[in-house]
């Protein structure tokens, strides 16, 4: 047999849920093997079993034909298995090099030989084309570079089999492109890769074979060649999926959000949002397209009261809400699906029910005269869990133990259910499966059709093009152009996002 990894009939249970039910996964030497499945299907769990973080109730694991018992990650390490987790596991205050060597530090005379470490890291990073700054602290570098540090960490330990758990969910399109070529380099150097992703395009582009799981059960393994995106999606969801967003003409009404000359500083005191003007009307979805780092994050934070406005004004329904605190912004009629769900969106150690009511817990009927009615709270949470298909063992489960995609669905349930006049959705479908994306896009369109305004901020061009009615292109903190979604395409948008209009304008 030329399988490097065989996981046969794996079963893993959590209280109240069977996460893996008799799953088999066989990976060939030198291939990129995709693992595909809906949110909560059990992909991360299966990989954590392989990596020794969880012990299966049943089933066997073979590495290079030999039966092994992966009792903890150190054993996985010795077997040459490395994992880049869905949520990075880096020490923020340490440098890239320190993080990479953590746990297997090179020593000379008992002391850590940091110079040797730096040299080794440099050598591996050159060999695979993984650009990093070895001396930068993790908290100061981009998500893409953090991920490259994670990959280097596994390579430094000599891993031959690499597991990538949704590596592209948090990356910009450019970074995804780079990651693809890194993966190809790895394969050329004789490594094998297991890749979890929800993006079917990526599977088609780079993977050899794909194993599909649905609700904890294996559906099958097929060659990627010859599979269409629709075919893959159907295999995974078990029904037909439409990629086109179904929507009628926008019934545009009054202006809901009006931004005038807005200036917002970033952490370093630089005007990252720079005299920005924008209007969003009721009954429309306005998409903000742009390359990451052009002020989108700060714009959304300023709109929602999380960041100070330096100058200019924000008005909602003709009422000035500049400098409102977050609670007042919310009560004025704004919903916010935050870009960073772990930082802002969820209290991970609260139950999923408490999280779903995080914006309403203080109102009747959940609070009466300062006393909480948890029964009402959980009733409401349960009805939303049902409606938004959040897969969780119960409403009392900690948010921490939900799968990434189901955490996101809980946030969306919370923000959309209040039906705010303005819904700000920042990267709302990051890390979601195609079925869930379809569901969320439909919800956004539903809000728009009921006369609400939707501001969609996304780094994904497909999403902006498909869902929006109008598209505002943000570049260096300004809206450089607003186009009708029907009259534009990827090429034009790409050019505008790169600051193309200014150059074109200057040339004229």
């Amino acid at each position, binding site marked *: 047999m030329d399988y490097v990894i065989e996981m046969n009939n794996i079963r893993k249970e959590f209280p109240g849920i069977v996460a893996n039910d008799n799953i088999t996964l066989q990976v060939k030497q030198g291939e990129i093997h995709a693992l595909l499945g809906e949110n909560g299907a059990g992909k991360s769990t299966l990989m954590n079993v392989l990596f020794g973080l969880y*012990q299966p109730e049943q089933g066997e694991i073979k590495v290079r034909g030999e039966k092994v*018992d992966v*009792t*903890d990650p*150190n*054993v996985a390490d010795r077997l040459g298995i490395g994992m880049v987790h869905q949520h990075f596991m880096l020490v923020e205050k340490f440098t890239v090099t320190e993080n990479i060597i953590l746990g297997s530090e090179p020593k000379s005379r008992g002391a850590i030989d940091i110079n040797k470490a730096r040299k080794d890291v440099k050598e591996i990073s050159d060999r695979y084309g993984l650009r990093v700054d070895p001396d930068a602290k993790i908290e100061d570098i981009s998500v893409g570079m953090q991920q490259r540090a994670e990959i280097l960490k596994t390579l430094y330990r000599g891993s031959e089999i690499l597991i990538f758990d949704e590596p592209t969910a948090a990356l910009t399109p450019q970074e995804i492109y780079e990651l693809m070529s890194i993966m190809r380099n790895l394969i050329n150097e004789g490594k094998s890769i297991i890749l979890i992703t929800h993006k079917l395009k990526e599977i088609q582009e780079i993977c050899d074979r794909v194993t599909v799981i649905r609700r904890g059960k294996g559906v099958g393994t097929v060659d990627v060649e010859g599979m269409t995106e629709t075919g893959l999606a159907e295999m995974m969801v078990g029904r037909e999926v439409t990629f086109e967003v179904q929507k009628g003409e926008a019934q545009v009404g009054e202006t809901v959000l009006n931004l005038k000359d807005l200036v917002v500083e970033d952490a370093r005191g630089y005007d990252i949002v720079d005299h920005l003007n924008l209007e969003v009307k009721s009954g429309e979805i306005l998409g903000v397209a742009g390359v990451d780092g052009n002020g989108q994050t700060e714009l959304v934070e300023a709109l*929602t009261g*999380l960041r100070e406005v330096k100058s200019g004004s924000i008005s909602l329904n003709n009422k000035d809400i500049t400098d409102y*605190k*977050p*609670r*007042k912004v*919310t*009560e004025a009629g704004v919903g*916010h699906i*935050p870009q960073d769900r772990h*930082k*802002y*969106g*969820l*209290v*991970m*150690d*609260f139950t999923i029910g*408490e999280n779903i009511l*995080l*914006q309403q*817990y*203080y109102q009747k009927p959940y*609070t009466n005269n*300062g*006393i*909480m009615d*948890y029964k009402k709270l959980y009733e409401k949470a349960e009805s939303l869990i049902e409606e938004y298909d959040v897969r969780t063992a119960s409403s009392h489960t900690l948010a921490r133990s939900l799968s990434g995609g189901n955490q996101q669905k809980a946030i969306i349930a919370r923000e959309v259910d209040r039906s705010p006049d303005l819904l700000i959705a920042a990267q709302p479908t990051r890390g979601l499966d195609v079925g869930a994306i379809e569901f969320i896009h439909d919800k956004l369109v539903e809000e728009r059709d009921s006369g609400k305004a939707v501001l969609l901020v996304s780094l994904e061009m497909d999403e902006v093009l498909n869902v929006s009615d109008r598209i505002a292109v943000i570049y260096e903190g300004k809206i450089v152009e607003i186009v009708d979604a029907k009259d534009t395409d990827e090429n034009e948008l790409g050019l505008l996002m790169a600051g193309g209009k200014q150059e074109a304008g200057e040339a004229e």
Partner: protein
Amino acid sequence: MIRDFLRSRAFGLVVPLIAVAFGLIAGAVIMLLSGNNPIDGYSGLIGGIFGDMYYFGETLRAMTPLILSGLAFAFAFRTGLLNIGVEGQVIVGWFAAVIAGISWDAPGIIHLPTALMAGALAGALWAFVPGILKAKLHVHEVIVSIMMNYIALHVVNSLIRGVFLDTGQRTAFVPDSASLSSEWLQGVTDFSRLHWGFLIALAAAVVMWFLLWKTKKGFEFRAVGFNQNASLYAGMNVSGNITSSMSISGAFAGLAGAVSGLGTYGYIEIFNTFTNLGFDGIAVALLGNSSSIGIVLSAFLFGGLSEGSGNMQAAAGVAPELVEIIIALIIFFVASSYLIRWIYKRLDSIRKGEK
């Protein structure tokens, strides 16, 4: 099997029991090594706790301030704060309560509550300082609250010495109208010093549970404790919550001092060293898993151990210091519960690796 158990939530509840058992076993070994009979020692100890109503009443009396100081630490801990200043808050609470007791006169129905209130307020104020510094200037509360302990000790001592000294090293006794002592409780416990403060402490345990798990404020305190960014996003007043939760924690501590001053002793004296009520409260909270019921149980254990130690010496000739060693070991074992997990995993992987 065992591995899953070590990861489970039940393990979190079993840890304190294991720690107590280990502590007692280690104590037995030490008794053996020092030539004592552990069975005699422990029966002396148990006799000193349950032996007769007097001992039992004294145990309840000893656990009273420990419940309150344990609640103080636990409340802050549940809201993401480390209040190492419980000790100082106990001292100022004790002082304020006694001063409010001796400096004026009123009918008991007014006088006693005012004196208790004065103690709670003083503790709250003392904790407010690290709270506000944390909330507004991001100064770590541990450092400030430790410093506040020393300030409390020395300021209170010099105020007693300079202004309130009555006889010897102490103030005057509080009058009956401000005293917690209860003839009835003393009567049923064979004239122990058990006082109404015990019921106040039990009520406070219920209050903490209610506050954290039943009120809107409690929801916010817990949220801020876990994730300040998400709390801000959800519209909570993060710095306000930090300051008030620190102050509430201090109020519990202040009450711990107040019940000692108005109940057990009836006065305050110049302290040569810290009272240790606050520091023991940290241990009580840790062992009690920061829950109300857990704290009452572990305060009973700690109070019982220290009260029973006297009888242990009388009955079996074991030095009472042994109890301090046992308490220290229990804390050590609680703190090392994670060590137990780690050792188990290590052993397991070595065994499997060699197979």
